[in-house]
């Protein structure tokens, strides 16, 4: 054989991402994966959004209705788990909570995985947030863009992940990392994306959970704008 094989998947799966997730059917990519994209978007926006627009790309756009991709995305936004039978009723549940939502089809470009959704979250008194998430197979998902920042964010079992918005100043990031280590968390890796003076860092740690008050404290560090935790999704 003289063809070259390109490794299309650099994302590592854990044991229970192969033997799982435990989920409500019918599709791991279109239902469970979509739910996880919604969960991550909600965790990044932190507050309950008032209005959410979902733009569905590729195979998501073609076959979303039959797979309940729409219901699963909304379920993720209201923090339902992939195995929660309430996913079926997510539209009603979200409406009860006062969340408006709409779906559109759109071509985000060939660089995106065929199962991708762009999520625009709005809430009065807050800047809008746009995230793009891809469901990459077997119920595993990742966020590939937060506003204009390209990222590679997924829920990795065994880690505690925080996302930090900060200024493009290495000293400030180093100071933050020192504080995290002082809390007893080991930093496993950091992925930083910068656009001119702004940056987003995804910090994977292991060790004890971050409490909300610890995160509030860390947010006070100079140069740090906001910190969001994905820990609840990693339990």
């Amino acid at each position, binding site marked *: *054989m003289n*063809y070259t*094989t*390109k*490794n*299309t*998947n650099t*994302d*590592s*799966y854990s*044991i*229970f991402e*192969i*033997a*799982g*997730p*435990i*989920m*409500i*059917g*019918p*599709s*791991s*990519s279109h*239902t*469970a994966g979509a739910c996880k994209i919604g969960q991550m978007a909600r965790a990044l926006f932190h507050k309950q959004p008032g209005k959410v627009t979902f733009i569905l790309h*590729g*195979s998501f756009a*073609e*076959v979303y*209705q*039959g*797979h*309940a991709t729409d219901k699963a995305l909304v379920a993720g936004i209201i923090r339902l788990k992939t*195995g929660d*039978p309430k*996913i*079926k009723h997510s539209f009603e549940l979200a409406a009860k909570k006062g969340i408006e939502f709409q779906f559109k089809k759109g071509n985000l470009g060939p660089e995106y*995985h*065929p*199962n991708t959704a762009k999520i625009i979250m709005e809430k009065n008194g807050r800047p809008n947030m746009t995230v793009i998430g891809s*469901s*990459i*197979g*077997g*119920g595993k998902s990742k966020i590939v863009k937060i506003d204009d920042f390209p990222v590679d964010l997924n829920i990795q079992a065994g880690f505690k992940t925080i996302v930090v918005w900060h200024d493009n100043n290495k000293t400030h990031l180093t100071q933050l990392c020192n504080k995290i280590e002082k809390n007893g968390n080991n930093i496993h890796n950091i992925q930083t994306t910068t656009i001119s003076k702004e940056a987003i860092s995804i910090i994977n740690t292991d060790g004890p959970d971050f409490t909300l008050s610890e995160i509030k404290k860390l947010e006070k560090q100079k140069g740090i704008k906001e910190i969001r935790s994905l820990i609840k999704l990693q339990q």
Partner: protein
Amino acid sequence: MTRVYQVMQEAIQKGLKDKKSSSFGMASDNAKLSFKLLEKNQKTLLSPLAIKAMAYAIATGEHNCKMGRIVAFPTAGGSGVIPGSIIATQEEWELSEKKAINALFTATGIGLIIAKQSTFSAAKAGCQAEVGAATAMAAAALTEMRGGTPQQAINAAALALKNKLGLVCDPLGGLVAVPCIKRNGLGAVHALGASDLSIAGVKSFVPFDEVVQAMNNIGDLMSEKLKETALGGLATTKTGLKIREKMKLPKIKKR
């Protein structure tokens, strides 16, 4: 993994009992019908174990299709093959639950190899990456469960996957129903066959790693219309188009 095993059992039991029809009649009581083959005086070509594997896999597939709770192992579309073949074998051969759970770990190991070198996404590589991958994982797990060597297990995976290469993802109306559910049923039988061949000493000429690479290559060459978009294959047959119409999906432009 015990929890995974329990959810699999629940899904099988619920799937076998459920008579409700859903998704435009594409999922109904097929699990029940196939299970009836085990009744006395029924003449079958397959062994009772194989029939059970088939019925259990279909039960899981139908339960999934009706938005029931299942384990995506490795995916929801291919979620019937592993529980079907492993739990049927455990029951028919009276093996311990521990053996079955160990087998699930073996299946996962094969899954990790596939994930590393390729994908489980039918949108990227078609059904070969879902039901195909599941049959490879199940074949290895069954081989380990019955006392085969690791070499025999991985060889069984290679035999199974080779025979599923090229399988496209062309579901009617894009729903995980037709042909997915019955592909799981027959996929479970396929895994049993691959394991039997491997135990008999039949060797895959192409090693498992290379088979996975071939699967990836085929996925790259496959038309987008045959990758979960419901724009080709069974999805655009006369019957497929009728379902599309019922679902009020946009008409497919001839290209």
